[in-house]
């Protein structure tokens, strides 16, 4: 087992990894930017190294400084968290060449899944259902038009190197297709460094359901059930839960099996998430695979009792999975809400000093946060302040508990998304579990 791990991240996820390390008896090294010198992750780690100025490109994404920090502190492994360098295949490669273990998938896994068109192709070959659409990249609008006629409109044009819902074009009519295609290529080039785009049929009202998987060095793969992530605003998840109110036991098993097949097909390693779209007719389709620990991983931890970050570390250290698929059991229901430092209506970021923070507590409540009373939220990074999770014996209890937890949270001094989250969890359709990815629209004024 590693004696010391460097955490190449900040905020709640850095703290999350430090907690896992402490519990495993592993020493920790925090890295931080000049803007984060007073951060909780710095305070919680055994050692800390300043790796650059506030700008993340020069600090949290600064590969030479982060690797040097690992070298001067004798860290044997690096946990990248999510964001920053977590899905940079180059970083994973450089770690390997520097003899430092990257706690995550192989550079090949990251590279392959980073190319959405390629991943789609690969999955189709492996027998995992994909949304009807192009085989790989589409190069001109004539080809796009032919395909659109075959699969039927509307279609979505996506950047092959995008992901997380970025760089999408929805096309409803054939006449608008050539123009949209060109724009999509241009945007893809500008946004992701490549004009490669691919096409999928637009399935209408659907749900976003993802399956958590774990894979060890020996090719053993298990899944840990699903997370329902349909409550999104502009592809940013706001609320997640497990189990999904939409799945039957049979469908759960089929999707789980498909996710395991997907991971095996690409010789995946460590923790990963296979995202699926579930349409109104209960057909599911591969969307993409996230090659990192995800923000919402605690949802799975609450219902399985497992500690996913510890499993990541164990796998990275070469240990085989300690359980088989049949050893995984689920208990109760968990809902997570993301409290962001944003205006709850316009979603403008709201950095600044938190005047008072009294987190919720008591039965079934988990809070993952790196903020505290009088903490100054820096304007340089993402707006996530806290993940609040509620566990219940039933979905009904989990819903009433997350409502209670939000009501009792005191967080003043900055704007937060709490008022929006309160509206969401009190919505009758949410309470009934009846929602799709368009659900949040009803609370958000049209731009």
């Amino acid at each position: 087992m590693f004696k010391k791990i460097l955490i190449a991240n900040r905020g709640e996820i850095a703290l999350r990894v430090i907690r896992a390390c402490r519990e495993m008896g592993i020493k920790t090294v925090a890295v931080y930017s000049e803007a984060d010198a007073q951060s909780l992750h710095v305070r919680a780690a055994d050692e800390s190294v300043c790796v650059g100025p506030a700008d993340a490109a020069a600090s949290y994404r600064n590969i030479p400084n982060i690797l040097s920090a690992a070298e001067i502190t004798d860290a044997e492994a690096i946990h990248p968290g999510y964001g920053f360098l977590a899905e940079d295949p180059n970083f994973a490669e450089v770690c390997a060449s520097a003899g430092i273990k990257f706690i995550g998938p192989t550079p090949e896994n990251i590279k392959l899944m980073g190319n959405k068109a390629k991943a789609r192709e690969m999955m189709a070959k492996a027998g995992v259902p994909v949304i009807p659409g192009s085989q790989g990249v589409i190069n001109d609008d004539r080809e796009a038009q032919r395909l659109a006629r075959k699969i039927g409109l509307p279609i979505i044009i996506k950047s092959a190197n995008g992901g997380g819902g970025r760089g999408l074009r929805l096309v409803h009519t054939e006449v608008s297709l050539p123009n949209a295609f060109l724009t999509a290529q241009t945007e893809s080039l500008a946004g992701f460094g490549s004009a490669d785009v691919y096409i999928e049929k637009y399935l209408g009202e659907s749900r976003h359901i993802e399956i958590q998987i774990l894979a060890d060095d020996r090719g053993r793969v298990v899944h840990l059930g699903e997370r329902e992530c349909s409550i999104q605003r502009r592809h940013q998840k706001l609320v997640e839960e497990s189990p999904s109110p939409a799945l039957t036991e049979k469908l759960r098993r089929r999707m789980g099996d498909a996710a395991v097949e997907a991971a095996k097909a690409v010789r995946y390693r460590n923790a990963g998430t296979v995202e699926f779209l579930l349409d109104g007719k209960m057909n599911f389709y591969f969307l993409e695979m996230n090659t990192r620990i995800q923000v919402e991983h605690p949802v799975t931890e609450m219902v399985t009792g497992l500690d996913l970050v510890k499993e990541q570390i164990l796998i990275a250290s070469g240990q085989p999975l300690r359980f088989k698929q049949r050893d995984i059991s689920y208990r109760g229901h968990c809902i997570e809400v993301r409290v962001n430092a944003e205006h709850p209506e316009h979603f403008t970021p709201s950095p600044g000093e938190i005047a008072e923070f009294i987190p919720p507590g008591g039965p079934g409540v988990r809070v993952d946060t790196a903020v505290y009373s009088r903490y100054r939220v820096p304007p340089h990074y993402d707006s996530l302040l806290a993940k609040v999770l509620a566990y219940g014996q039933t979905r009904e209890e989990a819903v009433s508990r997350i409502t209670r937890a939000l009501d009792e949270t005191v967080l003043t001094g900055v704007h937060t998304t709490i008022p929006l989250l309160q509206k969401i969890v009190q919505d009758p359709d949410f309470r009934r579990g009846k929602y799709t990815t368009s659900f949040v629209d009803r609370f958000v004024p049209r731009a």
Partner: protein
Amino acid sequence: MNLKEIRDLIALLQGTDIYEFQLERGGVKVRIRRGAPLPEGREPAAAPPRMEEAFPQEPRPVGAPISSTDRLITVTSPIVGTFYRAPSPEAQSFVEIGDRVKKGQVLCLIEAMKLMNEIESEADGTVVKILAESAQPVEYGEPLFLIEPA
């Protein structure tokens, strides 16, 4: 101003809650800042009722006189119950504003556990204000009357 003067000045300020003090001798200029410099925090967004807004802006100082002048006596409720200004709905109130009252005179009833408790004036004086409404619940320490002592 010499060192001794400064020393005296510091001794003077020690133990007070003055956190800033300025003095200009020429044109006689003094500046004293006291009380904790409260860190500012932006106001939160308008939101559904939450615990963070659960405290009234100015919590009533329970049991303390609410008058601006210390001369007035506040009669507070010694028990929890329902306040009545008269012995029965038809009867006259025990006291009205402007009435002169004697120490020990009954001012009102408070019903608690089906029992009527007589609340008496603590001093001779004049009823200046009646702070509770008849048939309304009152809590422990809630101000009921202001009496201007004779």
